[in-house]
């Protein structure tokens, strides 16, 4: 029994790490490679989760949606929806310094939260949407968890390869040139805003996909399923700690931070209730402090951005 | 006579690259000295070197008996050198008077004597002292910039291309005012693109090319030198 419990816990944790790693990869496209500050990660995540939920859930009275579509249609639609939200925001804000984008993404995440809470006809408000199909969900519990983990790993691997390929392509070279020396890139006649918009939308689509995978794993999505500020911040610390600009770093950061986060939760849950509640906030404080320490003492993260051919005079990159 | 400023074999640049290679120059008291040379010769860099805005890797700068190499700009200002950058040399959203006040930020006590002195040199500014500096014309902005730098009674004024982008009329006016400033006892070191006109008005000149000294002499001698005329002055 003990062993099964442990295996179950490991599977569960692996799935969460995979989903957060996807978010960190999405943020890496935006921040690590294009220098774009997205402070509304949870918003894009939620849009993805709800889009897929609306399309794939069974029909229910009094609610738009419930189209009973297969899960992969939902996942694709989740990416499209998150990208569609990112487009106007990016269009308006990317002409300015990234501070403006940070503020606007906080705003869009807030609006998405309001829509989810209040539009009963779309999101079923506080009760959320339940009964989502889960690939491999008919298997016995442990096998089902393992199957889902395999799917998460598969999606993560494909995303990683795609993103890595993008970074090493001429597109990636251009993004780095823009990020590292905007003036020079502008002087060379690069369409900086358009490139940034591409990166912002690409990253948002990955975040939307992560949201959909989260919803289908739980077979449901409710407004309380994630704390927007905590989720957004966890992804940031994952990327910064792991190493912004490094895709492997993003995945490593997701693993390290999620393990610290969930193991410390288990530890503090053993405390009497009164202290356990406080402990949650102390953990938040410490994770904020961790960010300050990383920024100060190891701003390149655990795995620094690799020097690619175009960045290093002697580099042996592509 | 000991020069007021003497830059001795100065080598340095921004970051790791050396833009200046063993540049030497002197400025005597109450003298107007101009640095001319082709684009990229290191003229403005030489001026910034005096002001400590550069990584210096060799040589030294002596001002009025003190070795000021490596001093902070703040300390150099207090010691008596004021610097007028080529661009962004005024506070646009502040009035003319406030610009002057900021120039005298380090000065304790009453500023009225300093205002009087600057307004005497730039009577146009006095009338408009409540006007926002950003709303002035290019020539008037240059006057505000010079006035700001003169508020601390410097012994040496550094002007980086003060006539860039100005009409010939304003250029003449800036040169005339520079003479007036010199006559109040302030030495001036300036960098100029308009080499001919500048050499004609300066006491002495240095020709810099590729970060090195090429020629020096009185303005008139340099103007008369055919080689210099062909190389730098466009015939």
């Amino acid at each position, binding site marked *: 029994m003990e062993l099964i419990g442990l295996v179950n816990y490991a599977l569960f944790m692996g799935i969460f790490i995979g989903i957060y790693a996807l978010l960190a990869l999405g943020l890496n496209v935006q921040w690590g490679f294009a*220098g774009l*500050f997205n*402070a509304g990660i949870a918003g894009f995540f939620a849009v993805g989760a709800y889009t897929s939920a609306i399309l794939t859930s069974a029909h229910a009275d009094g609610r738009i949606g419930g189209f009973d579509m297969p899960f992969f249609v939902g996942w694709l639609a989740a990416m499209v929806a998150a990208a569609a939200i990112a487009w106007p925001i990016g269009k*308006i*804000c990317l*002409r*300015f*310094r*990234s*501070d*403006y984008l*940070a*503020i*606007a993404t*906080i*705003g*869009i995440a*807030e*609006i998405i939260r*309001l829509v989810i*809470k*209040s539009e009963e006809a779309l999101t079923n408000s506080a009760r959320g949407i339940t009964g989502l199909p889960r690939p491999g969900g008919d298997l016995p519990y442990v096998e089902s968890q393992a199957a889902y983990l395999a799917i998460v790993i598969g999606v993560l691997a494909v995303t990683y390869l795609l993103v890595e390929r993008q970074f090493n392509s001429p597109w990636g070279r251009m993004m780095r040139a823009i990020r590292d020396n905007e003036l020079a890139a502008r002087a060379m006649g690069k369409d900086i805003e358009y490139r940034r918009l591409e990166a912002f939308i690409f990253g948002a689509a990955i975040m939307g996909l992560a949201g959909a995978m989260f919803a289908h794993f739980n077979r449901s999505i409710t407004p309380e399923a994630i704390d927007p*500020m905590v989720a957004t*911040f966890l992804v*940031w*610390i994952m990327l*910064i700690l792991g190493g912004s600009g490094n895709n492997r770093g993003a995945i490593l950061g997701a693993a390290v931070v999620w393990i610290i986060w969930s193991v410390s939760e288990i530890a503090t849950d053993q405390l009497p209730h009164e202290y356990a509640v*406080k402990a949650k*906030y*102390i953990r*938040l*404080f410490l*994770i*904020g*402090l961790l*960010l*300050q320490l990383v*920024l*100060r003492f190891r*701003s390149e993260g655990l795995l620094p951005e690799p020097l690619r051919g175009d960045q290093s005079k002697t580099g042996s990159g592509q | 006579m000991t020069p007021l400023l003497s830059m001795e074999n100065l080598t340095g640049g921004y970051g790791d690259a050396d833009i200046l290679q063993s540049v030497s120059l002197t400025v005597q008291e109450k003298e107007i000295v101009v640095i001319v040379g082709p684009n990229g010769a290191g003229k403005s860099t030489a001026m910034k070197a005096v002001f400590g805005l550069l990584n210096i890797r060799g040589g030294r700068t002596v001002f009025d008996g003190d070795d000021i190499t490596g001093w902070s*700009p*703040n300390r150099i*200002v*207090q010691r008596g050198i004021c*610097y007028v*950058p080529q661009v*962004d*040399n*005024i*506070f*646009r*959203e*502040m009035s003319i008077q*406030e610009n002057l*006040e*900021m*120039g005298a*930020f*380090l000065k304790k006590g009453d500023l009225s004597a300093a205002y009087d002195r600057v307004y005497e040199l730039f009577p146009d500014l006095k009338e408009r002292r409540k006007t926002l500096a950003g709303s002035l014309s290019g020539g008037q902005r240059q006057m505000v910039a010079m006035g*700001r730098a003169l508020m601390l009674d410097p012994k040496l004024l550094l002007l980086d291309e003060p006539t860039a982008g100005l009409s010939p009329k304003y250029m003449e006016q800036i040169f005339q005012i520079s003479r007036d400033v010199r006559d109040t006892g302030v030495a001036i070191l300036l960098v100029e693109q308009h080499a001919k006109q500048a050499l004609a008005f300066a006491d002495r000149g240095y020709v810099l090319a590729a970060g090195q000294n090429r020629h020096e002499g009185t303005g008139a001698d340099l103007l008369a030198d055919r080689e210099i005329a062909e190389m730098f002055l466009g015939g």
Partner: protein
Amino acid sequence: MGILELLNFYVIPGIVLGSIYALGAVGITLVFAILRYAHLAHGDLATLGAFIAFAVVTAIGVSPLVALPVAVVATAFIAVGIDKVFYEHLRDRPKIITVIASLGIALMVRAVVQVIWGVDSESYVRGISRPDVYFGLRIRDREIYTVLAMILLVGGLYVFLKQSKWGKAMRAMSDNPNLALLSGIDNRVVVMLTWIIAGGLCAASGVFLGINTELKSMMGWHMLLPMFAAAILGGVGRVEGAVLGGLIVGIAEELSVLVLPSEYKAAMAFVILLIMLLVRPTGLLRGKVL
């Protein structure tokens, strides 16, 4: 709907809310213009200020207006401390790094509030306050205090920036930082003054939000967007613009209820922000665009 009804139910509450936003927006605009980054912990600093006043109110039983100066001074100190410990060493790095750090500080400050005071709603004074009627206008005392305090505090700041030597130095640093340094203005003093002012005003905004509504650990975070919208609407770096922006955002939020479900009140700030960035990023009073 009569004009009195419009004023009583929408405009007056809007002016009060707008004054609260204005107090925060002034600090945001100063930090944005002088230190050159968007400070995302501003709202949570306001929460902290509000709860410091709450601690004073509950400890010695004074009115929140008496506790206000204590909260203002304490929060100003805390803001300076946060800058010294967390932001100062990032000064030579790209400014956006400090924006990230400030998001972390927002979380940390909120966590401190949540640990000390919990997550339940609190209020300074129990009971319902009834409005007085002036010529048909229904106004509560606390609403008058709020608007008056905003006018006094921002007016005082305005005079300081226009008249005093260090106030002018702050404007100079916002206007042209390189030239300010060349003029011998000590950047460290300017930064410290900026944080004292921003932190103090932030606390005032939190306390007045607490006086007019209630105290919650998320109260400040929810003000962040309106405060930024106000600062950008007025023009970054413009103190009078931040006040104007704050009032417009506050009134717009209250009026939005006439056409939108009340749940979307908070969306007004976002809409105003996007419209300004789209049509006039310098703001109404020609501020900076970073």
